[in-house]
């Protein structure tokens, strides 16, 4: 179960609306490497993990990703406050606006809605953890690209925090992968799936 806490993990206080930037940052809410996908990926993969430490890593990082989706949503929300129809058209935010007004919808920067097709849960811990390592790098580079597109310190500050978290999560997933491979046959990690074949052996 989960408990909601009424503060952001990292503060978001944006003075100047910027709908064009909001549209770009949407990528990190509902895009292929966004926070909704990250939370969904890790929290679903947990059940096939054969060791408690890595179950803990997926649970705790998945939980933190929920808090990150709230940070990204707060950024988009604050960037799209008090817009005039003129600003909406000129910024290119009109395509999003016509369907969602300034509501927060998990889509990518092109407006493509979030889909579980972005993620996998293979039931194979080695495959899943490799996906997780890649996911953290892809999210990290998406934040790098966002940082290339804005000078606004109010936006850059929380984006930099999120970027740093991707690097820490990558580190933890690497340790998780090592823990799982340490329990396998060092001559052939892929000889069997510890979450499936291991259970049958007993």
């Amino acid at each position, binding site marked *: 179960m989960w*408990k*909601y*806490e*009424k*503060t*952001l*993990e*990292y*503060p*978001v*206080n*944006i*003075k100047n609306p910027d709908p064009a930037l909001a549209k770009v940052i949407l990528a990190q809410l509902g895009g292929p490497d966004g926070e909704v996908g990250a939370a969904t990926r890790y929290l679903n993969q947990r059940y096939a993990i054969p060791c408690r*430490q890595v179950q*803990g*890593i997926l649970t*705790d*990082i998945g939980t*933190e990703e929920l808090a990150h989706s*709230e940070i990204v*949503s*707060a950024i988009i*929300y*604050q960037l799209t*406050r008090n817009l005039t129809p003129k600003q909406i058209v000129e910024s290119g935010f009109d395509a999003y606006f016509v369907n969602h007004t300034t509501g927060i919808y998990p889509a990518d920067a092109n407006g493509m809605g979030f889909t579980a097709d972005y993620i996998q849960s293979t039931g194979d811990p080695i495959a899943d953890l490799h996906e997780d390592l890649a996911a953290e790098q892809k999210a990290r580079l998406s934040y790098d690209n966002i940082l290339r597109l804005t000078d606004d310190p109010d936006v850059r500050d929380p984006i930099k925090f999120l970027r740093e978290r991707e690097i*820490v*999560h990558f580190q*933890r997933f690497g*340790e*998780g992968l090592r*823990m799982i491979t340490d329990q396998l046959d060092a001559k052939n990690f892929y000889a069997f799936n510890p979450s499936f074949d291991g259970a049958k052996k007993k």
Partner: protein
Amino acid sequence: MSSEKQKLLRRLQATRFAVIEINLYLDSHPTCSEGLKYFRSKSEELKKLTEEYQEKYGPLCAADSKAENYWDWVSTAFPWERGES
């Protein structure tokens, strides 16, 4: 948000972040005695700061509400509003 409230919230957020970070670290280093000591100290600090904040400014978690006459969980701002996080 008053500057005093924000100052306390920043301390709370920084301490909570330390707890989140050491929690993740301990998941993969469960026998690190230095890490465990750090966790105990930060989590104790977080408990105190949370109590102080909630006493002054209302509940951070609905379950911690001490409301008698009005359900205060819905009388304080949600954190996505500008100036409320």
